[in-house]
């Protein structure tokens, strides 16, 4: 296990204990855009760093801070802690370059948003029992071990 992942999992431990997805072992990048067949981790990172006013047709969507999936996504894809990302966004916002991606409250709100906006992408930590709503496709799967 990498140090980065260990850190992410440590950060998330309290959330797991509070009822998070204890069997989770995959992070999925999802979208309603079935034309978008493949996407790499690096491309996803660039899309999310560009924020709300991105330079690709894909619109990144974040879960709110504290969500388990967001913590895992930050560690596995962004490679930065939440506080470093917040610093980055303060620089982007207060220099007028860009604003952080849209945030939604929970995974239900995320999947609803994606179903209504085919250019949007989001992420979810899933387990064996996860049922992806009809209309959404998986663009990238990232395994991680606890």
């Amino acid at each position, binding site marked *: 296990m990498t140090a980065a992942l260990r850190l992410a999992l440590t950060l998330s431990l309290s959330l797991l204990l509070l009822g998070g997805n204890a069997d989770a072992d995959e992070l999925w990048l999802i979208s309603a855009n079935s034309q978008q067949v493949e996407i790499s981790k690096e491309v996803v990172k*660039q899309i999310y760093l560009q924020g709300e006013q991105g330079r690709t047709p894909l619109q990144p969507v974040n879960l709110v801070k504290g969500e388990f999936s967001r913590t895992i996504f930050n560690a596995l894809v962004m490679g930065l*802690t939440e506080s470093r990302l917040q610093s980055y966004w303060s620089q982007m916002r*207060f*220099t*007028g370059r860009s604003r952080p991606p849209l945030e939604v409250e929970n995974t239900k709100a995320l999947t609803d948003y994606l179903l209504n906006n085919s250019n949007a992408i989001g992420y979810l930590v899933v387990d064996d029992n996860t049922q992806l709503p009809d209309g959404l496709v998986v663009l990238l799967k990232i395994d991680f071990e606890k």
Partner: protein
Amino acid sequence: MFSHYTKSLLIAALLLCPSLAQAQESGFEWSGFGRVVAGYLAEDGMIYGGYDDELSLKPNSLLGLQGEWQFDSKLSLVGQAVLTASDQRDSDIEWLYLNYRLNDHWQVKFGQLNTPFFSYSDVQDVGYAYHWVQLPIEAYPEFLFKKYRGASIRFTPAFERVALDVETYYGSMNDTASVRGNQVDIDLSQIYGVIAKLSYDKYRLSASYHKGEFSYDVPRLNEVRTILTAVGFNTLANQFMSDGTGEYYQLGLSYDDLNVFARSEITYIAQTTNTIADYLSYYLIAGYVFDPVSVYVSFAERTSEEYSIINTVPKGVTPQLDELSIGVDALIDSFAINNRSLSIGARFDSNNNVAFKVEVKKIRGNDFQFDSPLVTKGSAVLLLTSVEWVF
């Protein structure tokens, strides 16, 4: 003067706005940032970056408010005001510009903007955005023009794994800067530049070039020039030029991952005026993240080239000439700054966009204001702590 400027920009925004109905449908959004910075220089008889041997919340504590009026998906009006109790700067509107996003790759701004000289020049007031409590003064000197009025064009092409960001701008400005505690009026007749940033994975490379034509009004310089002319040292007086052209070069590299960060920036400034020496400066910062705490060590240095003015006022002739000659020596010495600093610091990030920082900085060189005119260099330890937040 500013109210006239504000009015002009608002009128332009309304004219460009497609329709009032559309403007009403669009949104207005507030955001902001603040910092309370306490500093103490553990040495008497000198001042560094506005701090002396009395604990002070000035000059860096401030509150910033930013408002963005989105007319439609492409056009917005952005304004940022900074409120400060500092003696070295006034509370003022920092930005007020129209932002037009042509498409996903092109963005045009028009109005009053922050000069994007170096990596943190345009975000200097937002302490939450960087690790230090105080940006390295060696690389971010006080006299750099903080804002300009003009236009900028930004191009952000799309690539698979690499992000490129290129910006060019042109403008002018009349502004006041505080240089070693003295208010200096600066007239920037024109300034332009180009900034390129390339990001790949955890690395970020930036390079920029800027050129400006300026003149400035320094009371002390004018006084010495008047005295020298009055006593017949016209040639020497004429060498104390207060206008010229400056060229600014910058190269930066940074690395960020979950645990480690490192950043370096090298800047070179060449100017035709001989009252500011050409200089090379750089900083290196490296740190480790024990989330939510991060620690760092930083080194910065500024090395000036030899100044070209030779003091022709003789010593040992009369007490008055001695006094004048010593004054001229001190003035010439102040043009060339050679300074270095070593800092260690820590930052704690709470969950609600608030960060607490501490920094201990050892400084050595001549970038101080000294109580005694006979002292031209020294060393001191500066202790800083801050609370930074964004909202």
